[in-house]
């Protein structure tokens, strides 16, 4: 592998690495979101057992539009 080839492959690998890093960071974010959803769900369940209707207004439906 000549130095040029090493560098070119390095460039492609760097791009791949950055994209993967982004995906990993995003995985953490999604994990945090999921924990929050579970916490809210548990609270809503407790509230329902306590007989009070869960006073949680439904958020508007999530739709991805570009």
């Amino acid at each position, binding site marked *: 592998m*000549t*130095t*040029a*080839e090493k*560098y*070119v492959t*390095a*460039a*492609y690998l*760097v*791009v791949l690495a*950055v*994209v993967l890093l*982004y995906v990993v960071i*995003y995985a953490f*974010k*999604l994990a945090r*979101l999921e924990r*929050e*959803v579970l916490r*809210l769900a548990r*609270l*809503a369940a407790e509230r329902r057992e306590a007989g009070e209707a*869960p*006073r*949680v*207004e*439904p*958020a*508007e*439906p*999530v739709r*991805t*539009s*570009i």
Partner: protein
Amino acid sequence: MSLRNNRGVALASTAALLLLAGISLAFFWVPDDVDQGFSQRIFYIHVPVALTAYACFGWGAWKALRLLWTGEVRYDLESYTAVHMGVIFGILTLVTGSIWARISWGVWWSWGERQLVLFLVLFLFYSAYFMLRYSTEPGPRRERMSAVYALFGVVLIPVSFLAIRLAEGFIHPTVFTRDGPQMAGSMFFVFCVCFAGTLALAGALYANELLGKRVDASLRELEEARA
């Protein structure tokens, strides 16, 4: 509340397909460039990523314009995510660009390479965009200011490209700027495949991040409604 994200999934799969095809073509099928030899193959990732970054900044500015025009709040998140994508691809352009400079001219940074210098300026500019967002309270005011700033960004791109070209009049660059490689038919085809791949990749990441931001916003609303 179905979290269908079929747009994101569709984009991601097309991106994977296109990039796989493009990169393998770039590495194995397309002939060497006549004068630059093998190193020219970096071209098939560096330039598509750069063009995708421009596309993201343009998309962010378009969404910002729509926010100022219609006042709909959802455009703020879209503009914000698009600019975020633009910065990520901008950083990739800087990295691959400096690697290319290293291969072609033995230096990690060359002020002679106009596009590289432009991305440096844009990187500074759009980092300030995030500073602006982090130092203002969320609300209509922040949305409108971010939108105005994003519009300034898209006007700045051609203006500073012209400025960089003019700057070469008096800053003596190491004069070896190459004038865009002439591309044979097959090269151009591979370039297009790679470009479509990076655009699809940007679209997929954009759709995912936008979804994440929207879920975040809905959760905060839920959190508040519960209190």
